[in-house]
């Protein structure tokens, strides 16, 4: 009886299997690191046919994943990173599942990495309680969800957000670093001023020597430091930093608000660690004494920015800043005047009079934000919007929600053109005028391999011919990934000439919605685009036109 039952069960399983095989298909493949081609294990791959029908699997030690039974049809196969801080998609491809057939989809992508090491003093003794962070260099600006970047000026130095403190053996571990890109590992003492007026001795000779921010292995700036490039799931060991020491100098300053010394917030920015715009909420800012006085005595020779501000909930009421350099003596009698916030009226217009008012509201934002913009204030075109700004500060303008058919054709302030330049408001009533172009064109690139097959999941990079410097390229390039037919369409392009090319490896990036690709705007990535664009095709996008181009994928220089 028992044996009979077993046979019956076996038979029904067999039939079930056969049945499945005839109506279902499978998708499998490998996920490999773009830089090293080593397998990426233990990361999540999700197959979805529609919103309600998704399956999640994890790659094995060889980077393999398998979806054994998928319904026939098109499936999106998405690869996700495994950060604890948040999960994001790193690659996506479309697979066509055919009943009874196995489809192979391989990925070349990058995942998170780690860097560890020790911090040592001049004599090689371990240093405890030192803050270690990964510093990166990027063309910054507003990188909103619509990927319209408005970078300003040179590549800027900024901390990556991952930081660690050394333990009693001087060890640190930095987690969740992006793979395949350059980082400079910096060690420093966190600057917290419990007393705004230091009681350090008057003479610099009577003060102890202090530790300066030191970059791996033993440099005082990223220019002379050694960059590290961790690869996917790699733990880069022995990134040991030997800290530098210098004499300590004092900064004595008085902070004023509306002309009078007052208790207010101050922030000391160390330019060797960060030279970006300060965010609106001044993270890490501290309070002056009642007379607006500060005396900070742990400064080393180098460049600094001192920011004075009055903060209230959600806004900067006044702001001022001064750059100063420490050489070999104290800096005294500095006055920083915070200027009250004011407004600039901004006019939004169409480039032609005849266009009907846009139904889709457009936002104009400044970065950094002077006032917390919690609710998105949209406006119609034509229309007027008021921006909260502090005169004299440098802002980047961003236009989230701009319809893909349109583009920002011109920006002028007080009559001067400032398109793709920083916006520096002045006191007075100069107006900002933003002209929205309505004759955007589109560019469709079809990427085919040498044997004429469609090249899926390949990057297509579009650069205006007029953008020559790396900074200009960073502000204006667009990128996307081809679909399963090897096709990608970029809309919203201002009419003009473009260089376009298809790249097998565009460097570290993120995939956004609608086939958008956000390439990390690093100096190395921009230099590679600049060098490779000559091997692409030069095309003209006409007014409201649809241009097509056929490309073959190339290796970037």
């Amino acid at each position: 009886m028992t044996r009979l039952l077993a046979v019956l069960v076996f038979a029904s399983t067999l039939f079930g299997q056969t049945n499945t095989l005839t109506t279902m298909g499978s998708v499998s493949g490998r996920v490999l690191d773009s830089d090293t081609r080593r397998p990426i294990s233990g990361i999540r791959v999700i197959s979805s046919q529609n919103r309600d029908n998704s399956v999640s699997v994890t790659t094995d030690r060889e980077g393999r994943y398998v979806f054994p039974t998928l319904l026939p049809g098109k499936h999106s196969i998405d690869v996700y990173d495994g950060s604890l801080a948040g999960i994001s998609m790193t690659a996506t491809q479309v697979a066509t599942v055919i009943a009874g057939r196995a489809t192979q989809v391989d990925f070349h992508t990058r995942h998170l990495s780690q860097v560890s090491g020790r911090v040592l003093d001049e004599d090689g003794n371990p240093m405890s309680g030192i803050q270690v962070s990964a510093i990166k260099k990027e063309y910054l600006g507003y990188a909103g969800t619509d990927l319209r970047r408005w970078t300003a000026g040179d590549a800027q130095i900024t901390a990556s957000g991952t930081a660690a403190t050394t333990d009693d053996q001087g060890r640190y571990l930095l987690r969740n670093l992006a793979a395949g890109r350059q980082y400079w590992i910096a060690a420093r003492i966190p600057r917290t001023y419990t007393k705004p007026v230091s009681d350090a001795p008057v003479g610099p000779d009577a003060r102890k020597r202090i530790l300066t921010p030191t970059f791996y292995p033993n440099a005082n700036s990223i220019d002379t430091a050694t960059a590290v490039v961790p690869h996917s799931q790699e733990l880069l060991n022995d990134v040991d930093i030997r800290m530098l020491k210098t004499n300590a100098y004092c900064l004595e300053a008085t902070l004023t608000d509306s002309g009078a010394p007052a208790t207010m917030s101050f922030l000391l920015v160390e330019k060797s660690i960060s030279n970006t715009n300060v965010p609106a909420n001044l993270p890490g800012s501290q309070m002056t004494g009642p007379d607006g006085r500060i005396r900070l005595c742990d400064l080393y020779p180098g460049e600094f920015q001192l920011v004075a501000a009055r903060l209230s909930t959600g806004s900067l009421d006044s702001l001022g800043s001064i750059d100063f350099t420490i050489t070999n003596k104290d800096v005294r009698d500095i006055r920083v005047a915070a200027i009250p916030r004011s407004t600039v009226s901004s006019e939004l217009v169409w480039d032609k009079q005849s266009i009907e008012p846009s139904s889709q509201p457009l936002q104009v934002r400044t970065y950094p934000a002077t006032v917390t913009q919690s609710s998105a204030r949209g406006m119609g075109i034509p229309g007027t919007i008021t921006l909260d700004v502090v005169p004299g500060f440098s802002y980047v303008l961003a236009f989230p929600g701009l319809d893909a058919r349109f583009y920002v054709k011109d920006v002028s302030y007080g009559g001067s053109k400032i398109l793709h330049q920083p916006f520096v408001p002045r006191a007075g009533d100069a107006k900002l005028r933003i002209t929205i172009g309505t004759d955007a064109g589109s560019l469709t690139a079809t990427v085919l391999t040498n044997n004429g097959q469609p090249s899926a999941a390949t990057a297509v990079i579009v650069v205006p011919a007029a953008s020559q410097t790396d900074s200009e390229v960073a502000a204006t390039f667009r990128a996307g990934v081809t679909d399963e037919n090897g096709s990608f369409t970029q809309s919203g392009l201002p009419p003009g000439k473009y260089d376009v090319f298809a790249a097998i490896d565009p460097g570290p990036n993120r995939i956004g919605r609608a086939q958008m690709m956000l390439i990390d705007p690093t100096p190395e990535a921009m230099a590679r685009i600049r060098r490779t664009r000559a091997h692409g095709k030069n095309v003209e996008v006409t007014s409201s036109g649809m241009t097509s181009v056929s490309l073959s994928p190339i290796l970037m220089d």
Partner: protein
Amino acid sequence: MRVFASMTSIKNAQLAILLLTLWAGTARAESIQGTVLEDHSGAPVPAASVTVKTIAGETLKEMETDRSGNFAVADLPAGVYEISITKANYSTLNARMTAGSAVTRVLRLIKYGVISGRITLPQARGTVVAIEKVAEYQLPRSFSGMINAAGEFRIFGIPPGHYVLAAPFLSANTIPGVARGMALYPSSAKPREFEIAGGEQYEVADFVVQPVGRSTISGKISSPAGPQIYTLTIVHSDYPSIRVQLTLTASDGTFKLDNFYPGTYELYASGPVQPPSFFAHIHLELNSQDVENLDIRLQPGRAVEFVLPPNGKPPLPACSPDGSITLQSLGFWPLVRDQKITAHIGPQPGPTRIENVGPTPFVVSVQSTTGNCTGVTDRLLDMTDKVPPARMITGFEPPGVIYGAAPGASVIVLRDVTPGRQSPVRAEFTNSSEFHFDAVPPGQYCVTTRVADDAILRWTPESRCGNPIVELAPGESKGL
């Protein structure tokens, strides 16, 4: 020099400055030399920060010890100075030294301890915590170390004290299957006590948490405010600073939490969510059994008054006649208001009334707004009592003094051993065998006497204090 040394007992700092200034012009240059050693090993401590201040608080010189732990300050006017020595991972030392003696003094720094090891857990994620052993109704300190991918942890920077090692299963919300609770090393029934006196490095072999039966608790919370979402916090009874659960009930007040590790817990419930005005407290003993249909009825919070004695005068001119009261909850309440309540007291007559205090034990501290005076009051306010005190009387007292004579000794070391507190070690080098520590806050102290330049004898005995612990009350002047 002797005359000047006795100046330290004069509290008028301005006079001291004046005298110092007068002396500076005429006295010959003197010096202070020292060698900084690790207390437990006697090894030199290089690159320690040394700050030289006058008794009045003016910083004269900063430097670091050299490779052999030595420092020297020359060109000082004769007199007594406050030397402060700091280094990461060591207790700060504040020492009074006299400029002029040619002797190189030995100063000892207490190194913080380390507990490291490997943990085997069903879900080995999170931290391992060293929790200080404290008397009932004291707030313990705790120090934690992250568990890495290999299950290893390293807790460093543990100051002197007695500790137990805990693996807390923390859960901020109801994830099914995730254990909640706490396990002690090596077993919750018989936890090992780790003593840190300076420089200990404990290696814990295999911290194994056995999979055992888990409990489920369920029930319903109700209050006069009607059915709604309430907040639930569960802490470990013996270690109330370890919160094992913080969650919200369903909108009808029902809750179900599974996977509780065996142990004793305190359940606190409050609501409506913001601000809480109704509270309840339940003691739970869980040993693999399920606790079902708990019926928790919240009661309004109760009021407590603080009052200064009539005609109370500030004990020192520097101390203001008003101050602030802080009630720190021993139970880890869900909402900030009930973890820590602060209120202002005085100088106007009449009581300060704090409304709506939840049923948890609170540690009370009162501090004058300016100056350094401490409130005298019962340290504990137990709102879990059926009839908690409705009124507490407080009055300000100045910091205390510990003084005395120690014949034959030339360095006297004062260590604050009040559990839950971390203060710099104080030392006084004396040529007269007399010592005088002023501005000592109330608490428990260990006073040890040593031959100043003994490079062998530690300042911290292996046990917590070689001599009886000195209990100092607010404003007390204690002679030894």
